[in-house]
């Protein structure tokens, strides 16, 4: 009797690969797949610019303010949590980039000193500060200028530098998306790292484009003849713009989900694989103990608090007090200028000084309490715990953006109806303003609190995992320090989101 073939002792579980799905997978891998996603958003951006300059100056009646500040932000945080960095994937700002690349002199890299996240931290800080101070949310024209600014900055940086410098080092939206895509359930990974080991062209990062056709040989048979070849040609695809090397990707940080790597790989060795939520966040040396990435992540969580603080009435009392304390009113400045100085002070303290002091203090205290001061530098003690600020920070942003999204969900309909009507198109009828009515605010408030608490719980869970890895039997002492900081931030968040909103653009100083 013939023996039955034995099942292998270990079969790896088949992983979910989005790029293998019947229709979506094909569309995403298609050469023009990204462009097909970008064009609708490009048209939308042009519409917003047009309405921003020609439509109603009242923000709640203009598409330029409704779509980005209410709907886009809400959808972005939900997409990051549930799928991944979908906005960067279909980002219209990078379309002129392709043109810029053709004009580019090539060869010049972004200055070494700026190849980090410090510039992105600055642009994020500047965007949120201007958002509050110049009331970008209340101004369709300024919002239109911001959109134009994005296109211009992306174009110029791509024309001058070889890599996608704008996405990787400058873009505040991209930096936000990179940070919170670290919780997303999808990640670019290779199917078989052994294939990468023998891959000659490393097209995932180098690209498969060549002005003249070039044959590459990946494997030579025993008879000395090439058995595995592929070609680079003008129809090829660029490699990873943010210079990620697929077989080494550990994190979604810096991945725009453009899928160029998957299109360029001649061995069809790249997939967009499923993983657990935030699976990467507990990995050791996740961001190579880099201070810049750590403070991007930590700063964004604090910015979540400061940004929400700017939308409730105590901020106006604080600004009044600051103006009085520092004698700003006596200088004869305009109210708007006084507001700018007072607000800048709040931002510097809330999103700069406080995160620095509290995280360094927590790291130093944890080192002392776990008696690891001789073994670990302060950098190691701090950067290892930076990922714990991701879930809580995301909780803050979901609570804030989710509030605007849910309260303003239907408001885009009458605004669009009015836009069409103003242009002589009556197909959608009279604007139905009742659609903009806020749904149950108590329910939304409860959902906000839930988002903060879930983020906090996930951050705590992550902290104990990292503490266990770093401090082993001393983990409790290390964990408690970071847990206290998280608790203080969570309570601050709950307090902020329980306050009634008061969005004022004009403050009159006494």
């Amino acid at each position, binding site marked *: 009797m013939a023996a039955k073939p034995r099942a292998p002792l270990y079969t790896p579980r088949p992983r979910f690969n989005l790029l293998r799905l019947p229709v979506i997978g094909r569309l995403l891998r298609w050469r023009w797949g990204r462009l097909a996603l970008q064009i609708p958003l490009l048209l939308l951006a042009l519409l917003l610019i047009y309405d921003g300059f020609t439509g109603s*100056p*009242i*923000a*709640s*009646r*203009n598409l330029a*303010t*409704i779509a980005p*500040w*209410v709907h886009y932000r809400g959808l972005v945080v939900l997409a990051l949590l549930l799928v991944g960095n979908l906005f960067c994937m279909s980002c219209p700002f990078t379309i002129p980039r392709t043109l810029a690349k053709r004009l580019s002199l090539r060869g010049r890299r972004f200055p070494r000193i700026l190849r980090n996240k410090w510039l992105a931290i600055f642009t994020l800080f500047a965007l949120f500060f*201007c958002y509050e*101070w*110049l*009331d970008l*949310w*209340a*101004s*369709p*024209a*300024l919002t239109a*200028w911001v959109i134009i600014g994005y296109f211009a900055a992306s174009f110029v940086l791509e024309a001058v530098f070889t890599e996608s410098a704008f996405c990787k080092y400058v873009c505040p939206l991209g930096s936000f998306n990179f940070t919170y895509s670290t919780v997303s359930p999808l990640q670019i990974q290779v199917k078989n790292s052994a294939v990468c080991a023998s891959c000659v062209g490393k097209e995932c990062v180098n690209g498969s484009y060549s002005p003249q056709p070039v044959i590459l040989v990946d494997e030579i048979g025993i008879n000395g003849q090439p058995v595995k070849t592929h070609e680079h040609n003008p129809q090829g695809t660029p490699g990873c713009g943010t210079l990620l090397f697929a077989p080494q990707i550990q994190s979604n940080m810096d991945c725009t989900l453009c899928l160029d790597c998957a299109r360029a790989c001649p061995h069809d060795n790249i997939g967009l694989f499923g993983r657990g939520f935030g699976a990467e966040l507990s990995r050791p040396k996740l961001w190579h103990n880099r201070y810049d990435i750590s403070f991007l992540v930590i700063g964004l969580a604090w910015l979540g608090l400061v940004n929400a603080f700017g939308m*409730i*009435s105590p901020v106006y009392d604080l600004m009044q007090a600051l103006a009085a304390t*520092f004698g700003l009113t006596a*200088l004869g*400045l*305009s109210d*708007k*200028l006084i507001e*700018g*100085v007072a607000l*800048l002070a709040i931002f510097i303290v809330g999103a700069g000084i406080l995160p620095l002091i509290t995280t360094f203090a927590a790291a130093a205290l944890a080192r002392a309490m776990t008696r690891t001061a001789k073994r670990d530098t302060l950098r190691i003690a701090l950067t290892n715990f930076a990922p714990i600020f991701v879930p809580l920070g995301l909780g803050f942003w979901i609570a804030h953006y989710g509030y*605007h999204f849910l*309260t*303003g969900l239907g*408001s885009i309909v009458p605004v669009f109806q009015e836009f069409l009507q103003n242009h002589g198109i009556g197909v959608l009828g009279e604007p139905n*303003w*009742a659609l*903009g*009515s*806020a749904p149950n605010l108590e329910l939304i408030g409860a959902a906000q609190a839930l988002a903060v608490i879930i983020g906090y719980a996930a951050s705590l869970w992550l902290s104990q995992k990292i503490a266990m890895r770093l401090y082993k039997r001393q983990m409790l002492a290390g964990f408690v320090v970071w847990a206290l900081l998280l608790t203080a931030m969570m309570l601050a968040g709950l307090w902020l989101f329980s*306050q*009634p*909103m*008061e*969005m*004022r*653009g*004009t403050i009159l100083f006494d």
Partner: protein
Amino acid sequence: MTIWALLTLVLASCQLAAQSDLQNTTAAPALTARPNETPAHDTYLSIEVTGIAGALPVGESALQVTVRDGAGLAVVGAAVQARGDMTHPGMAPIFGVGVENEPGIYDVPLNFNMGGDWIITIDVTSANGLTANQQVSVQVQA
């Protein structure tokens, strides 16, 4: 001191960019019914809105709209409608209809459901068909 001076300089330059747009959101002057004509006393309306000084509370408030003709006489029997929009996008507008309590003076009730800056657009149509509108900014405290 130098730091404050520098900060002030930087912020002042940024503010210039915002200035033109900010002007758009503050009160606009009353419009006449027939913009291309030289207004005669009986061919245009003027609107004055009171009851908006200082911050209003969240909830019901009433604005007083005084409607006069070119000679400064009270315009009775006009239809006065108000629409309130928050300066933050995504918030539903509120509406109010004026009730004439004294000749030419109309009380317009509005239910401010959230604190913040509101822009109130007043539309007036007189009995003889003249129209006028005006926008005013109102601050509502939570």
